[in-house]
């Protein structure tokens, strides 16, 4: 009896006796049919009640999407102001003669700037030197950062400190240290961020040490060039190491345990588990490295652009170079994507 009372308390609108329950179901059915007849245009609505609910949800969703859009506004306005409009202006520059007096004026010049670029031997040389650097640096940075990430992923004492050390260059390179390095060694390079320029001690020490070993001058030269390259690579791979490390940590230990049970060697484990698991990150890292190398203000092409702007005030030509350069970078990144898409192994998703 007590239970029945409880049930009734929960549904006060319903009638008390249990015998009424089947009646109620019957009652609903004709109602449904009636609703269908009335709203014959909307087939999907099962009942009047749920239709009301749906209308309410529609307006709720509209409200949601309105609020969502409002939230993106600050960033969008910032983007328009400091990215989109400047980019449009820059395209306009690249297509015209830019004349500077108190104000500036642009005059359409029939792709003159673009045709100039390809007659410009300096640009082509700078472009090929930048590409040369890229072709060497990207594979070395990738292999190096994956290797270091695998090392840093092992359990050992002092791992936290080691990780911090490998991330430090990311914090330091853009900072004032590089300025000071360069300022101390070379006045003209104060505003450049080239690491190898700055670390004079490495080159000097190396010359000294190698010289004292009695090696020839040519060999010493090679050794120094290599050590400079190592510096470049090591100092440019902070972010890549972090990305690889993160990917390594997300691999399920169960996979390795299964390997251990089957008696796989460390070599097999690396190529059959680790490598496929981090392959999506390899693509991310390739793209990151390419963009990073291309947008480094000290590379040959961007130095040329800088010189065009600051010394000859040839804005039109500079803008045209930048856009051609960007287009080439996009083509390269697109090609990398197409090649890597086939090779990447996606576990889930």
């Amino acid at each position, binding site marked *: 009896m007590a239970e029945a009372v409880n049930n009734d308390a929960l549904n006060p609108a319903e009638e008390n006796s249990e015998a009424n329950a089947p009646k109620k179901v019957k009652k609903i059915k004709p109602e449904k049919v009636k609703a269908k007849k009335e709203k014959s245009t909307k087939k999907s609505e099962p009942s009047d009640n749920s239709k009301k609910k749906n209308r309410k949800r529609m307006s709720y969703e509209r409200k949601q999407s309105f609020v*969502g859009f409002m939230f993106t506004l600050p960033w969008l306005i910032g983007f328009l102001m400091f990215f989109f409009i400047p980019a449009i202006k820059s395209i306009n520059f690249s297509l015209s003669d830019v004349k500077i007096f108190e104000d500036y004026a642009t005059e359409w010049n029939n792709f003159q700037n673009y045709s100039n670029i390809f007659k410009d031997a300096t640009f082509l040389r700078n472009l090929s030197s930048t590409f040369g650097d890229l072709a060497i640096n990207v594979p070395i940075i990738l292999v190096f950062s994956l290797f270091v990430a695998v090392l840093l992923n092992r359990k050992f004492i002092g791992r936290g400190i080691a990780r911090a050390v490998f991330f430090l260059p990311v914090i330091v390179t853009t900072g004032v240290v590089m*300025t000071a390095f360069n300022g101390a060694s070379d006045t003209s390079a104060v505003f450049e961020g080239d690491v190898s320029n700055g*670390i004079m001690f490495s080159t000097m020490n190396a010359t000294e040490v190698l010289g004292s070993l009695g090696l020839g001058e040519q060999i010493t030269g090679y050794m120094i060039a290599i050590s400079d390259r190592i510096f470049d690579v090591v100092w440019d791979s902070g972010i890549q190491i*972090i990305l690889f490390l993160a990917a390594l940590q997300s691999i399920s230990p169960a996979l390795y345990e299964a390997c251990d049970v089957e008696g796989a060697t460390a070599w097999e484990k690396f190529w059959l588990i680790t490598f496929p698991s981090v392959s999506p990150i390899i693509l991310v890292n390739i793209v990151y490295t390419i*963009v990073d190398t291309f947008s480094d203000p000290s590379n040959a092409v961007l130095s040329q652009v800088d010189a065009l702007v600051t010394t000859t005030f040839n804005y039109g030509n500079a803008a045209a170079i*930048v856009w051609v350069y960007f287009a080439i970078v996009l083509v390269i990144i697109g090609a990398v994507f197409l090649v890597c898409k086939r090779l990447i192994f996606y576990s889930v998703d």
Partner: protein
Amino acid sequence: MSKLRRNKVAIAGDITTYILLLLYGAFMALPLIYSVIQAFKPYNELFIFPPRFFARQPTLGNFSQLFDLTSSTWVPFSRYVFNTILNTVVGTVLHIIAAAMCAYPLAKNNFPGKKLIFNVVVWSLLFSGGVLEIPVYLVMSTLGIIDTYFAYWLPEIAVAMGTFLLKQNMSEIPDAMIEAARIDGAGEWKILWRIAMPAVKPAWLTLAIFAFQRNWNATSSSYIYTETIKTLPTALSQITATGSVARAGEAYAASVLMLVPPIIFFILAQSSTVKTMAHAGIKG
């Protein structure tokens, strides 16, 4: 027996790890350590050939000379320090707020144009800001913010990296959590700051590291002329670069001082960074 062999292999692996990491770590850390040591070298030791790694007579002379130099500037030196601290705080906060506001609906709301906006974010990651400097100047001059603090602050809003990272991380928050908050009657604004942001704390701490470091090291570029609103890095490079050889010691001292705040900030927030990058990369 085999367990013993295993242990031996493990120990050998550990030793190799240590050796290799020390070797690479040396390449990373030596320039830094060297610049710190340089800051403590007396002037006559800075340019000896062959150079020595360690200082024979360490001195604080470079630092005291640096402070002498700073007290002789036309604008009080504290003004530059104030400017840089102000820019760092305002710039970092603005960047994170704008990024969070944009990232949250991209991750958890549906509205027309959402895909387009996210594509715009991704594409603008491919650009480097420097190449647009002249057109940006033109826009700023139209807005009338040349030579004001806003020239430092407003561009921070448009940095796409923050929006991208936060969006990737917020997508990982279970929908049920957001739904529950909505059912309980929380507005979107409240959900963003009370539910979504605490859930992606590692992500915005990472962003804060980058933004802190970017703003802290910001030089007063071509957008600023008035001396009183120039930043600390600019002032230091002016002080130390004039007659660079003569001021080499002070330059090292200045660089060491400038490095301390970002490194402290990094250490405080560091443990979160690795976790964040995982989400950013994998869920492309």
